């Protein structure tokens, strides 16, 4: 079988993630208004963005990824070292984006677009991923982070501006995506086989579906709601 026919048998997994019901109220950030530099970007106190729900109910910031058919992590398939860095910016005293995903060995490039100092403090919990705390001056060089072990939702925070948080998930394979503001996701070039597809929202938890991937694209949808 030629390489080209093998490649042509890889398929994409697409889908839409929706939120059913009314999301809980976000938390108002009054602290930011007490900061001389940061408050200039906000006419009213901003809120948290734990739930980003579009007009059609699309739920953003859901990390969608594959496990094997038995629900175990897919490991040893990282292409992270050959991938371009993923950018995390500090802008208007907020991390942008808030939810990211990279591969093991892939660089996370942290930028400071603000004219104030931030400290970039990552707090992984998996052994092998190093906790780091670095100063980043305004106009200073970008900082680079890599993680050798898979881990979900590694916290990045600024201890100077205590409301600043971002969460980075690390996978040992390239089969993941993050849903956009319409709730859409696409995992590209998935080899044929049986998998467990996981949709993980940091506040709402995770849902799974067992899927079969052949040589045609597969569509899988998820619906999240807050159970009483």
């Amino acid at each position: 079988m030629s390489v080209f026919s093998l490649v042509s048998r890889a398929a994409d997994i697409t889908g839409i993630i929706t939120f059913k019901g009314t999301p809980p109220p976000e938390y108002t950030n009054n602290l930011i208004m007490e900061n001389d530099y940061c408050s200039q970007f906000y006419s009213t106190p901003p809120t948290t963005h734990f739930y980003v729900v579009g007009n059609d109910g699309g739920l953003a910031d859901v990390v969608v990824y594959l496990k094997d058919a038995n629900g175990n992590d897919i490991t040893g398939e990282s292409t992270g070292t050959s991938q371009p860095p993923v950018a995390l910016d500090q802008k208007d005293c907020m991390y942008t984006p808030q939810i990211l995903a990279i591969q093991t060995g892939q660089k996370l490039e942290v930028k400071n677009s603000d004219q104030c100092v931030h400290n970039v403090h990552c707090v992984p919990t998996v052994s092998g991923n190093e906790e780091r705390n670095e100063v980043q001056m305004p106009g200073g060089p970008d900082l680079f982070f890599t993680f050798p072990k898979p881990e979900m939702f590694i916290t990045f925070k600024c201890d100077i501006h205590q409301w600043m948080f971002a969460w980075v998930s690390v996978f040992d394979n390239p089969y993941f995506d993050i849903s956009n503001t319409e709730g859409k996701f696409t995992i590209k070039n998935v080899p044929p086989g049986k998998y467990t597809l996981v949709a993980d929202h940091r506040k709402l938890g995770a849902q799974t579906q067992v899927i079969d991937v052949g040589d045609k694209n597969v569509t899988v949808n998820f619906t999240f709601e807050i159970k009483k």
Partner: protein
Amino acid sequence: MDKKYKEKHNCWLHRFAVLTAVATFLLLAAGGLVTSNGAGLSVPDWPNSYGYSMFAFPPSKWVGGIFYEHTHRLWASVVGLMTTILAVWILLKDSRMWMKWLGLAAFLGVVAQGVLGGLRVIWVDADLGIVHGVVGQTFFILMCAIALFTSRFWKGISEENKLNVPRSLRTVVLATTGLIFVQLILGATMRGQHAGLAIPDFPLAYGQIWPDTSFAALEHYNALSSNPNIITAFQIILQMVHRLVALTIFIGVTVCAVMAWRQLGRRDALTKFALFWLALVMMQIGLGAWTVLSNKAADIATAHLLGGALALMTGALWCIVAFRRSARSLETETVPFGALGTFAGNK
């Protein structure tokens, strides 16, 4: 009191010891504000601050969390200097050998505490932060004890003119004080774990006497929580244990106050001290509730930390005075008493 004894009392040493204890208390407040504002690592280097000498870091750069962390370091330096002066003063002017050792212990303690704080920053070690918090409060007790030992009150205690404190009462106070120390460690661990926001209501926990910590329940709590950190079962249980220990402490302190009233009489200084202790613990429970209900407001959480420190200090000093009065102390000292002759306190 004998005039000759009065002249021997070094009131300025005592006053400086009290001032150092007060400064240490203020340092606890400064340190508490650091953790309450999540600013522990806002200054990533030590002993410098963003490359500046600690004492030359421009105030214009003390922004956000940096303000809390840097002022904490500066005040810690003041306390370090005061402790050093106190230790040298005791070494030179206090004739009691055990006090000289205590002064040395205070000096070594403040140095160790400073190093612990610095290592917590440069090693990025959250567990060291918990140790730093516990050692800080223990050091505060030591400074209060030194203030007590240099006081005229302490030197005036003798078995001739004070009631012995019954062993049963001493034991209950000692046990309750020990429990407060355990509570201190629990509280420090909670603060290190960010478990203070793990339960949003009081006195119930998620509307129940004992909250559901099943997987489904945790998912529900996290979905509704404003806490940026994920709430875990461990954090919830940790806070519940903290609440239960608080209740036990309240019962213990109440028993102490009742026993003191009955056994020592209402006019005895230790009875009054026990009643003060009870009021303090009640206030502390109120502060704990307020911390939860205020969504862990930084100033309220810090006040709760300080209340805990005062409760521990009260119990510790009560025990020290009680054991001294009961003539069970292990130290040997001679204090000129004029017409009363020499008092040897080793039984």
